[in-house]
């Protein structure tokens, strides 16, 4: 009798709780998962495919669903990895590949045959030109993803490192060696 009472009470309470939770889950239902968007926002959007996915958004989707690791974005480097790991709430993982210094694609125009293959390959429409015309890269749009190099049948696309300019120079962290060469020790006697 006592056992029956206990089972009934516990069962009853559990049932009531279950109903309350079921109703609550209906009332407080939340739409969608903003995680993919948030991950996409921290990716560098080079669309380079070095992560093994065809672009930044597919990679973001894969990470958000837990399919992909957080450390696959090569151009994003450590900063992107940390940001994604933070968003996903998982421990950071070392980025395996070192990001290359920022590059720009450059088409040697006199060699270009105007095949438009590179134009089709460019994920951000940074190459302009018409069939049988020279193509050229819009520098300010090029992400340096190198996707245009492979399709070129005459190998006239070079990846050049981005020129350093004074305006974009920033201080490196204290104690880190920089490329600044100091005069005054070796080549003295200027005047």
């Amino acid at each position, binding site marked *: 009798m006592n056992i029956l009472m206990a089972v009934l009470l516990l069962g009853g309470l559990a049932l009531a709780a279950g109903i309350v939770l079921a109703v609550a889950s209906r009332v407080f239902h939340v739409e969608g998962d903003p995680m993919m968007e948030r991950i996409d926002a921290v990716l560098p959007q080079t669309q380079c495919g070095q992560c093994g996915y065809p672009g930044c958004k597919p990679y973001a989707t894969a990470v958000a669903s837990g399919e992909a690791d957080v450390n696959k974005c090569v151009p994003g480097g450590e900063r992107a990895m940390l940001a994604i790991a933070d968003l996903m709430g998982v421990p950071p993982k070392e980025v395996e590949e070192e990001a290359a210094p920022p590059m720009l694609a450059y088409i040697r125009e006199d060699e270009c045959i105007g095949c438009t293959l590179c134009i089709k390959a460019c994920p951000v429409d940074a190459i302009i030109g018409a069939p049988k015309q020279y193509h050229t890269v819009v520098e300010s749009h090029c992400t340096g993803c190198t996707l245009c190099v492979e399709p070129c049948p005459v190998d006239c696309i070079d990846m050049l490192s981005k020129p350093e300019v004074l305006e974009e120079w920033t*201080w*490196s962290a*204290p104690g*880190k*060696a*920089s*490329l*600044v*060469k*100091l005069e005054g020790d070796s080549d003295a006697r200027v005047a």
Partner: protein
Amino acid sequence: MSLLISSPHAHGGDSIRANMLSVIIALLPASAVAVYLFGWLALFLMMLCIAGCMASEWGCLKLMGRPSRIGDGSAALTGLLLALTLPAAVPWWMALTGCVVAIVLAKQVYGGLGHNPFNPALAARVVLLISFPLNMTAWLVPMHAPMFAASLPLNLYDFSQCWQLFWFGPEALGKGLDALTMASPLGHVKTEWSRGVGAIEALRNYDYSYLDAFLGREAGSLGETSALALLLGGMYLMARHTISWHIPVSFIVSVYMLATVFNAVNPEHFAPPLFHVLAGGLMLGAFYMATDPVSSPVTPRGQIVFGIGCGIITWSIRTYGGYPEGVMFSILLMNCAVPLIDHYFRPRVYGK
């Protein structure tokens, strides 16, 4: 290739070493009083603690393969401070344990100088107090204590007696620890309080005198007894700008204010404010422990909050708590809050 170097290219010449050194110098008067009161024992204890802390520091850094920082004087300072907070009659191994705890557990584990959240000397003292409550509350009768003027149980200026006591304990002298010790004013008040005797009455039957407390002729830890010596050193530190006035002043003033208010409400029951200010480790704590730069807030407003917090906790523990003295606990407790204080009490930014 060269290192990129930013301005400024000039420097005021301050250094960690100079800071530590000035605190050690500021502690000289209190150390001298300690030797005056506790003779050779004080000297043994201070030397042991300084050596112990420096050795621990050296060992830790060696073990971790980090460059030695013995020269900056921070370990020596921790040792001296620890010694000054210990009762004169602690066994040598206890003091040494304190040194190891202070340097290893409270400092090097956190990454060494600059990273310890708690004052190492106080952390060590609280570990000792909780591990060895008996020894840590046995106050040796000091030389020149007025009430024992006629019959001192032990001549602390006698080298061989002190040597025996220090290394082999009171048993070596054929005496029990009880025979050599007396109650500190705070301890006495607490005991009487628990028996239902008011503070004024307790002080009366203790033969308490403000002048003795100010000069330091009373029982207590090595360096905490003389408010005068500690004040002198504190003034020196403030004049040298090693510490700012914010923490000591807000600490002492808040204790004083609280005591004044409660003493005014019930003078028989609550101890008078001046007693609180002169008693126990308040001066030592306020000028040398709470101001430990590493474990105290950096902003002036934060320092005031910190000092007031210390004051309130100190008074509360002294008055209501299970322990007779609360300075140590209050500083450690406020040390916990330092990151939050620093975060929430920043100076006003120009134009904001």
